[in-house]
């Protein structure tokens, strides 16, 4: 189950125009001096990041770019955020792509890199800081928007009392999502509350399922649940199944896993928020390479989510999931 999870971003610009730009740029980039990119992001033991890593690799391969992926350690996030940026700057790459998870630590290094003549592209997190830091752009998804989308989906399904489950206590990004959900729910005339799971439980799906089941027995008015990763979402669905509440309590979750997709089909989960981490990695490398080479970049932030998966579009997602490992999620 993922611990970290800092991602993000902003609604912005249509991404389609960009795709054209990169197709045109691809072949040319490989010809003269090879572009090198340092990519500072999350660790692969957090299930959010393997697709991001895959996207970065695929883009580097397609463009003939030399890619150094430098992961932080979520258990020691401040110190490793600093160290990874130091490493990236020391490598003197043509561009740096960075997930600005801990802005107070990372921002000075972004400024330092820019001052040293290395262009920086921010992805996933840092949507409020990237311009002030002197980065040339931002790609990702903004937390409150995810909460807002979830609130709208669940209330449209008929839920009146929502529960937002936070699986990593104290994580600002996950908190921001539940806050966005709470604000939108209020506007829609429904109620919501948060449930923070103990840190020790976050890796134990069985315990998470029973925690949620017990909490629901004490709060029988809850009729909608939103969770912030697929393992917690499927655990919530299992808790509802055990309590024979499937269908009476609606469930939505962030992240996509095969089990979660199966439960969309069986109706145990209503919808998944596809954060499209593959795009974070892919666009991160593509935009950094284009900027390093030509000085061209999209203007303003590029939004990669929230994109919703439900019964309407699951067939396509499921097919891609099974055909291409780590593009949407792990097989």
């Amino acid at each position, binding site marked *: 189950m993922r611990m970290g999870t800092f991602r993000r971003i902003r609604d912005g610009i249509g991404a389609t125009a960009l795709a054209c730009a990169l197709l045109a740029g691809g072949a040319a980039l490989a010809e003269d001096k090879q572009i090198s990119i340092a990519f500072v992001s999350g660790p692969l033991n957090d299930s959010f990041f393997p697709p991001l890593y895959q996207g970065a690799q695929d883009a580097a391969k397609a463009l003939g770019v030399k890619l150094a992926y430098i992961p932080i350690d979520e258990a020691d996030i401040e110190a490793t955020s600093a160290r990874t940026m130091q490493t990236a700057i020391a490598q003197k790459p043509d561009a740096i792509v960075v997930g600005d998870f801990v802005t107070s630590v990372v921002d000075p290094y972004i400024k330092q890199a820019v001052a040293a003549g290395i262009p920086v592209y921010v992805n996933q997190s840092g949507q409020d800081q990237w311009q002030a830091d002197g980065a040339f752009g931002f790609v990702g998804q903004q937390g409150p928007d995810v909460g807002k989308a979830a609130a709208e989906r669940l209330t449209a399904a008929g839920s009146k009392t929502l529960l937002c489950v936070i699986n990593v206590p104290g994580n600002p990004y996950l908190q921001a999502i539940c806050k966005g959900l709470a604000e939108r729910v209020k506007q829609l005339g429904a109620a919501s509350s948060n449930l923070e799971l103990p840190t*020790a439980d976050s890796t134990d799906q069985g*315990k998470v*399922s029973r925690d949620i089941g017990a909490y629901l027995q004490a709060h029988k008015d809850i009729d909608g649940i939103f969770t912030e990763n697929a393992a917690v979402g499927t655990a919530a669905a299992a808790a509802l199944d055990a309590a024979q509440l499937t269908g009476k309590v609606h469930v939505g979750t962030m992240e996509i896993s095969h089990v979660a997709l199966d439960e969309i089909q069986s109706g145990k989960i209503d919808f998944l928020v596809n954060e499209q981490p593959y795009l974070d990695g892919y666009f991160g490398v593509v935009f950094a390479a284009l900027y390093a080479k030509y000085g061209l970049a999209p203007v303003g932030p590029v939004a990669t989510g929230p994109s919703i998966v439900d019964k309407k579009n699951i067939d396509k997602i499921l097919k891609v999931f099974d055909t291409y490992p780590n593009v949407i999620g792990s097989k």
Partner: protein
Amino acid sequence: MLANPHPNDAAGAATAASRDDEATQQPARGRLSRLLIRPEAGGVVSAILVFAFFAVAAGQNGFLSPLGTANWLDTAADLGIIALPIGMLMIGGEFDLSVGSVVGASSMVVAICAGYYSLNPWIGVALAFAIAGLIGLANGLIVVRTKLPSFIVTLATMLMVTGGALGVAIALTGSSSISAMTTGSAKAVFASDISQFHVSIVHWLILTAIASYVMQKTAFGNWVYATGGDAQAARLAGVPVARVKIILYVCTALAAALSATNETLTFQNGNITLGSQYVFTGIAGAVIGGVLLTGGYGSPVGTVFGSLTYGIVSLGVFFLGWNADLANFFIGLLLLLAVLANHRLRQLAMGRA
């Protein structure tokens, strides 16, 4: 999964040096004080107290309903399967901090075989147990050969197992979290429910019965107490101290593989971080259940009640309708009280010797 007790090996000599606690405890004055100096007394008392508290405070919210009971019993069973061999290992005088990492690695092995490569789930299960057994063997061999503190050795192997498993998983599948669909006999054995109760409760009870028998009735059990009580004296008395420790490490790793298999096949998802909480809760369960940190003292039944206490408290706060913020506070408080109480009881017992 428990070892052959080797009943013919120098059992007589070993027995003389073993079970120093029980052997040296003189009959206490009253029946109650005799009960209270048993190793499991602290665990039994704490389990009863927390059960009574939550039955009264959260009984209206379903704590006592069949589903509610299944909730905290399943939690106790998950921990109990780990705390049981951890407790025996601690009685034998050693720690194993790597147990959580073995759960995560085994989970990945099961999921990669059963999910990613769509093999028969039993192949993944067999491979997970084999790899876990080898990790346990390595832990044991390093500890007895180098004579380094097991705290450090297993801290090192914990990091190596987690890193190694992640590296292999990323190389093979590109991911650290893999779906594992289960059907058939493996599902029945590891992932089924009996009414609302998970099958892991059955595993837990069977393993506890075996462990209790081994610790109480066999030469191997005596050797474990002797090894943890005073390894030097045990060695002189002919106890194969090294072999005892190695077997205990292998048992701990196999229990980790069982726990991983249960969870992975039940939720159809393998994850490298699964089980990482057991580094702390495994030891907490054993200690609340009366196992002494310095070795030589404790019982399998005690760890059952230590695990029950953990299951009741950690689920009970949710039945109260609270957020979980306070659950760990209560677990920590109980741990402190248990250690204090066990320490006092131990002093009482030794004072009468």
